[in-house]
């Protein structure tokens, strides 16, 4: 028992893979091609969790972004895309957290509470954020010039990036 298994924790792995599955299911509603890419990302994510490799997890994150872009460029629809984005970000976040917790505390320690709280916080933030973004998007869907939207986006990104901790 004194040995520590420095591998991603089991609760985190289970939650991450569930979120990955959810992402595939949501994308499959409107965009099968993106769903396939998302499935690939899920498999890479599972591989990263088995190997305990941060690099592979990041690769899975990259594939998720590609899947979401593909879904967006196709006709996935805003609601589906936002839901899939929540599921994908959640999957990567939980997986990466499971990796770091496993590295610190090992698989034998009971870390369910820690990881559930982490997952729940991320889920709440993403859900509220997606709701806000969706509401703004619906309200502003008029004939605004595209340059205005671009400038708005760049401005917000600059503002957020400049936020002090």
């Amino acid at each position: 028992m004194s040995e520590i298994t420095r591998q991603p924790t089991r609760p985190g792995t289970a939650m991450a893979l569930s979120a990955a599955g959810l992402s595939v299911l949501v994308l499959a509603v409107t965009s099968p091609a993106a769903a396939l890419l998302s499935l690939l990302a899920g498999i890479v994510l599972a591989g990263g969790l088995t190997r305990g490799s941060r690099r592979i997890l990041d690769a899975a994150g990259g594939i998720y972004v590609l899947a979401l872009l593909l879904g967006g460029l196709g006709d996935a629809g805003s609601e589906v895309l936002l839901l899939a984005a929540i599921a994908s970000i959640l999957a990567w976040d939980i997986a990466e957290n499971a990796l770091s917790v496993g590295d610190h505390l090992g698989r034998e320690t009971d870390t369910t509470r820690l990881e559930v709280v982490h997952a729940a916080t991320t889920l709440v933030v993403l859900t509220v954020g997606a709701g806000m973004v969706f509401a703004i998007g619906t309200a502003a869907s008029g004939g605004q010039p595209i340059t205005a939207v671009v400038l708005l986006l760049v401005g917000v990104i600059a503002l957020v990036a400049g936020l002090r901790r």
Partner: protein
Amino acid sequence: MTQGFDTERWHGIEGLVLVSAAAGVFMRTPPLLLLAGLGIVLLGYVRIATLDEVSIQVERELSDSTPDADDEVTVTLRVTNEGTRTLFDLRLVDGVPPALAVSDGTARLGTALRPGATASTTYTVTAIRGEHTWDETVVVARDPSGAIERRETFHTETTMRCEPELAATADLPLRGLTSQYTGRVETDVPGSGLEFASIREYRHGDPIRRIDWNRRARTGELSTVQFREERAATVVLVVDTRSEAHVAPATDAETAVERCVDAASIAFPALLDSGDRVGVAAFGPEECWLPPSGGGDHRARARRLFATHSAFSPAPSDAAFFPSIAMRRLRRRLSSDAQVIFCSPLTDDYAVSVARRLEAYGHAVTVVSPDPTSTESLGARLARIERDLRLRDLRRAGVRVVDWGDEPLGVSLERAEAGWSR
């Protein structure tokens, strides 16, 4: 207090947001702009994350702070959030003393804590001889998004002291070197005693009881019966605590030092009970010397010494060791009539030379050698053969050797005694 540092967990999000926004603008697809919007929300969440100084209280409780050897001791680690903010991500690694092995549960805790809330974990350690002090508890805290991490250490004073009773479970036969006091060791000195030694001509002043009256009746001459005199010995138990002696046949097995100390703590009370004066010395980097003496106080002192002296700690010491200085110091301390019982696994030639030199200086040496070798690999078998050769070397030099395998010490002694000449 350490500053929080960036875990670099969310690096690259800005780029992905811009890529998504650009793709959305370029292809004129509003959903991608919404995706970028969600990315910005996430970015904001990560950027505003803060982590104040972690103010927690760590408590540790032992079910028994003075256990017997091999007792299972339950350790409860309690952590309380004393700050005003919720700690979303708190990871603790307890500093279990290096000599103790966690036998059940883990000495680690991961949790989220509201202000004032307490979380706890329990684990079990198996007590072994010695004084064990817990190291600092390492605490890692992260903000909810995991972007900032802080590492701090908390010190909670906890000590477990395990002092096994000294039990004389085996009787160690001594060699002929003795002091002038009456005791248990049979010497070749003729005088009063129990075992017949010789008959010599009567001299004026010999006790009447010792006159051989049968001979007087037969021949008419007076003669005196002489017995082997029984005297007490001065014995110094020298324990090999050099790093070379910290070896074990398997990773979770007792080290040779542990078994050497066991042997010494068995021999000590046995010798004391038979009236010999006993001392203790460590031959290793940590200095330890208990001068030969007798009595109840001495027994208590030795018990504490074996249990808690750092020289006999189950983990090897980092201090530098100069064998020739230690040897000289040991020689200076040994009185000329002191016998030596040298407890060593004999894993190198230096241990052999120590025994041989002490023998050459006139201290009758008995080596008690726990066998730390195994037969698992070719190298282990080679080490065993080398050790066997060293034992043979010592026996040839006239040193008594007890090769102590897996059986109780008494059994090994019995077997070894059969081969010794008186």
